[in-house]
């Protein structure tokens, strides 16, 4: 195994991760492109040392051919990564068209929840007020009966 190749993989992955963590969509897409390269090289690396291309020249293998399977896998993954990255790019483009900016937005509902609310279930509050009276927290007093009367004229 080649240390250089392993270092290239690590470098591509690190660069890709750094870009993916940014807020601009285009950089994220580019980051995935780098990550994809890293992953494909890694597959190849898993096949072992460099060698002769896997072509059968005569009647059979002569030895020294490089492991063909990781290449086939990498071929498939290149295509898939390409398709997905392009789709992401189209999405980024659409997003830019709509918003005039290519920064990822935060989720609005999440932000709303994150701003701590004080209001709570309105129904519950009403019931509690009524029942607390019944329990006597406010003593025998306020009109309760009509609230509970299910038969209103």
């Amino acid at each position, binding site marked *: 195994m080649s240390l250089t190749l392993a270092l290239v993989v690590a470098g591509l992955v690190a660069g890709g991760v750094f870009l993916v963590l940014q807020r601009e969509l285009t950089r*994220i897409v580019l980051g995935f492109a780098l990550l994809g390269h890293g*992953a494909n090289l890694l*597959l190849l690396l898993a096949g072992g040392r460099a060698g002769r291309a896997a072509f059968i020249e005569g009647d059979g293998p002569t030895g020294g051919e490089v492991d063909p399977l990781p290449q086939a896998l990498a071929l498939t993954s290149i295509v898939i990564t390409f398709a*997905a990255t392009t789709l992401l790019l189209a999405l980024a483009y659409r*997003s830019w068209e709509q918003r005039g900016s290519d920064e*990822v937005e935060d989720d609005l509902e999440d932000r709303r929840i994150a701003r701590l609310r004080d209001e709570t279930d309105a129904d519950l509050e009403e019931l509690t007020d009524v029942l607390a009276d019944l329990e006597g927290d406010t003593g025998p007093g306020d009109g309760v009966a009509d609230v509970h009367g299910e038969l209103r004229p």
Partner: protein
Amino acid sequence: MTLLLSLPVAMPLAGAALAVLAWRHRRLQRAIAVATLGATLVLAVVLAVTVERDGIQTTQVGGWPAPIGITLVADLFAALMLVIGLATVLAVLVFAIGQPGSDDDAPAFHPVYLVMTTGIVASFLTGDLFNLFVAFEITLTASYVLITLGGRREQVRTGMTYVVINLLASLLFLMALAFVYAATGTVNMADLVGRLGVLDPDLRLALSLLLFVVFGIKAAVFPLFFWLPDSYPTARAPVTAVFAGLLTKVGVYAIVRTQTLLFGEDRPSTLLLVVAGLTMIIGVLGAIAQDDMKRILSFHIISQIGYMILGVGLFTVAGLAGAVLFIVHQIPVKASLFLVGGIVEHSAGSTALSKVGGLVRRIPFAAGLFGLAALSLAGLPPFSGFVGKLALVEAGFSAEEYPIVAVSLVGSLLTLFSMVKIWNGVFWGIPEEPTPELLATPGRLHTPLLMNVSAAALVTLTVAIALFAGPLYDLCERAANDLLDPSAYVQAVLP
């Protein structure tokens, strides 16, 4: 058995190709889609019956013996998932066809939907780790398209999150595959069983955990689920329904498959149980914090995943049987809840609890469906969720894992709480006057028949699961037995 295993994978693809060729002939596309999925479902049922009778079925694609070629394998677990998954996919398709103004209008919908089905089927049936990656990619890429179909701004924004996170997971998966290949020289799962066994345990654990993280992102377990509730609710109802019902479960399926088959010897059990507990509780707390029906339901997806992981974490026959039963019950329940959400949206124009109310009067049938499915989700008897919960509780107690059972019961109560919250907010209360916009759209106050029918079909399926829980549990137990003892699987693939 070649036909039974091959056709479910290839037929939806052929259907997709025809649907692409039938571009813009919507009726034709619908007919193709329904016919293809219907036929595939029938095949899946036959396959399940065969597996039940004759044991694990395999076929070697291309006629190349494993591990040279790719093997398709159906054990009981896969067959169960296949049947229930396809039934759900078909019901949701009918809903999409019945929903006016749905994504069904886009010419890309049907082909993409069919391709996604292929991906799901292949994920369940493949016996090859790299092919599983491909199957995932098929499913995911199709889901990227479905979630953004229509290109509305909200969809694009959340679709972005969805795509980016899943793309990252895919690349991690690819790297994991490279490591697995580097260590073993094969990607056939049955072949891997023996080759992983001779590895250094630490290395094996590292591989196992990397794959767990990868599938955990897709299955939406803590702390990898944050993307899900942001992205699911913005898609149209049928899309969300099928995502909610199936896509996360494909991730769970992969977790179960890899953890039992490949890493059965040194499973990270305690870690799994902790993850399960956190997933349940954080998920359901998220649900409680929400004020929108679809968002509440989305958080519930996560919470319920925790129960499945609990079963896996116990790693006993009873635990896995419970997990399998739980998954089987979750798929239609979750999908039907989102379909009812679609009906609510259709007839009230919103799913925000603050904006709708009293719908039990306007759409009593859908309300009833919701009630049944919600009680099932909350694990109340006599519905399917109860049987699943009971199985997990019994398994947990048997394994003497008391804390996690307690957590799961608390989670169950909180689930009930948020289901009641939806019920009180959406179906009870003072009905909101229909907005002028709704009144202006003809037919909005009336739910199209197909929408009700498909939601009802899924609810019927859950009721059937409850009704026949006895034999079904026996099947799950057998499936769990097979999962815990991979020798039959290996034997079937590598004779």
